[in-house]
């Protein structure tokens, strides 16, 4: 590479004024140094987070990683920013519709002063004006690899630390370390150099998640395992990875959660709560409530116990440098949206967990911690043995989680089944309910 290297450290910036061919390449960030323990841990100031109801439609799409703009049903105009009515024909028949992400960079500027606390702490900050292929001209946060105007650019909607969608201008072709861009790292939750807790390393899914985080460059992965006397395959292999430390963790036991939090919560940057109990009963197929209770105890109360102990620690470290605390991932299920009656009590526990996870998201938001909810369809494991394919491979689920963190996505529906159920649920929840009752 002959291109100049763009330093990503503070107070240094490159302002290119000519062509995209001279775009700087993002330098890979180094492993953050140990912090000076006599200095106060910086607390977060959130970026501006006020949005009107209409504008939240933009955030809703971005939460899934989609770039959607308001399109007029009457005159087909596409507009931004969001409004109550079409800017061209005043029709109120506006639909959020996915848009092509290409555009032309019109001009760029570098912010060197801001009275907004979030940007003030992150100056200089580069912005650009982009004429979208979809129509509107929009202001974007610029990735460091985007050269000066004029030039082609990709635009994406991302959820910022305040939980609101913002527009980001990407280079058409990024370099190997483009994820290390200083601005992008603020907008996403990249696992690189971060310390991760995976709550259950005994399941195939848990082990796939651990490997995916190790591959993604996580600094350290703590892997919880309950009931150590129950031998299940694969845990020894996971434990042998140099980044991995096995830790006793049983989400049914408040003391176990408290003890682990006391030991490591102050260092955890990403929590991945994948521990779950899944049995395949409805109401009549199993006498008693013990199975439903076991599901609820892990899937719902387990999340509650974990969030009470680890949540405050993550919130306190959400602005702690390049590898700050950043995200909380909950493994839910597409059945959380609508009951799959043959897995009825499991569905109910996941619906409860989904509701609690929304509460967690609201409580983590003031600290800028992203709560990511993952809604897989049937996973290819023992408890879905009788469910016909397609089933989600554990590794596919794990990769979807890492991708969501890298992309700054909040709601993940990995796999064909989840996508299809989501579409049916969006189209008409009542129809889906009746269809699922039939499948039982």
């Amino acid at each position: 590479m002959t291109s100049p290297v763009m330093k990503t450290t503070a107070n240094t910036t490159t302002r290119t004024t000519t062509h995209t061919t001279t775009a700087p390449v993002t330098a890979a960030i180094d492993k953050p140094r140990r912090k000076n323990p006599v200095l106060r841990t910086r607390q977060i100031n959130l970026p501006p987070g006020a949005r009107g109801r209409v504008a939240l439609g933009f955030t809703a799409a971005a939460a899934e990683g989609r770039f959607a703009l308001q399109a007029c049903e009457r005159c087909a105009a596409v507009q931004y920013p969001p409004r109550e009515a079409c800017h061209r024909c005043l029709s109120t028949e506006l639909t959020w519709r996915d848009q092509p992400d290409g555009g032309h960079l019109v001009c760029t500027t570098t912010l060197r002063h801001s009275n907004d606390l979030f940007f003030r702490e992150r100056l200089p900050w580069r912005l650009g004006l982009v004429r979208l292929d979809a129509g509107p001209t929009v202001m974007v946060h610029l990735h460091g690899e985007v050269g000066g105007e004029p030039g082609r650019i990709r635009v994406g909607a991302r959820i910022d630390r305040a939980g609101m969608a913002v527009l980001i201008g990407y280079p058409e072709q990024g370099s190997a370390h483009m994820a290390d861009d200083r601005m992008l790292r603020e907008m996403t939750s990249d696992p690189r150099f971060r310390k991760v807790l995976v709550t259950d390393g005994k399941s195939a899914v848990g082990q796939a998640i651990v490997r995916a985080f190790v591959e993604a460059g996580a600094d350290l992965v703590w892997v919880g395992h309950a009931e150590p006397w129950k031998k299940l395959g694969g845990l020894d292999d996971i434990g042998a990875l140099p980044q991995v430390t096995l830790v006793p963790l049983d989400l049914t036991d408040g003391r176990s959660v408290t003890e682990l939090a006391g030991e490591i919560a102050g260092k955890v940057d990403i929590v991945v709560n994948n521990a779950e109990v899944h049995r395949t009963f409805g109401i009549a197929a199993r006498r008693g409530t013990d199975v439903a209770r076991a599901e609820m105890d892990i899937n719902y109360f387990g999340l509650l116990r974990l969030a009470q102990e680890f949540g405050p620690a993550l919130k306190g470290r959400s602005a702690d440098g390049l590898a700050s605390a950043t995200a909380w991932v909950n493994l839910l299920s597409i059945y959380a949206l609508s009951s799959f009656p043959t897995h009825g009590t499991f569905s109910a526990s996941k619906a409860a967990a989904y509701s609690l996870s929304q509460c967690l998201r609201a409580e983590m938001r003031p600290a800028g911690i992203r709560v990511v909810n993952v809604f897989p369809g049937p996973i290819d494991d023992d408890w879905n043995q009788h469910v016909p394919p397609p089933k989600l491979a554990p590794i596919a689920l794990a990769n979807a989680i890492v991708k969501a963190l890298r992309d700054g996505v909040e709601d993940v529906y990995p796999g064909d089944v989840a996508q299809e159920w989501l579409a049916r649920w969006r189209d008409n929840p009542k129809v889906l309910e009746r269809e699922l009752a039939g499948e039982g």
Partner: protein
Amino acid sequence: MNQVVDDPLASAVANTTPLLSVLVGALATGRIRVIDLTQTLTPGFPQIALPPEMGQCWPFRIEEVSRYDERGPGWYWNNFSCGEHTGTHFDAPIHWISGRDLPNNAVDTIPVARFVAPACVIDCAAASAADHDYLMTVADIERYEAEHGRIPPGAWVLMRTDWSKRLDPEAYQNFDETGQHTPGPSAEAARFLVEQRDVLGFGSEAIGTDAGQGYHLRPPYPCHYYMHGAGRYGLQCLCNLDLLPPKGAVLICPPLKIEKGSGSPLRVIALVETTA
């Protein structure tokens, strides 16, 4: 005590002191010691593990209600949950299908006098250390009797294995891919104790009265099958059996009075005479 007994034993021999005063006096002087045979109830103590498709015994779990805080400013207390067969626990005959139709077969209806009884401790510690699947044999029992005399009717027989010294739950449970490997009685020994010695019950240090591989014996789980089928009891997850004499200890082990209960966690204590 308001009244000091000078020499209770001498007065008892002279039939001038009530027996219980003798006991109280002996306890006060340390002539009789009380030994705790109970594991502490803690969330980390393992529970019986069955295949996941079966119903499961709850482990011990505990949550604070308040601790001199905003939830209760002047007091500390907890809620706990567990199964009837969690921690050091008692098995009633109704626990097993072979004892399900016997009279007084549940913890609430067993005559309370049964909860105080002598104990014979058969030392299988060395054999169990050498073989985790060790099965106590009739020969082991006969060897014990040759040294310590015949097991009296109505006594507990406790199998000392020192298994309770395995403080790490993983070592205590001792699972591999073929299941659990813990010592217990052979089918013949269990049957012999019931039919030939009329014991009150059988006690063990491991998580069950039967060996870890007891499912593969004939009949499966022979100690449960024979003991409970004959209205006898079980004690498991005992500890400190190494502090008991081979004979002469008295166990006090009343389970909780749970209606139609199949068993219960309990405090097991032993009265032991010190040899002065």
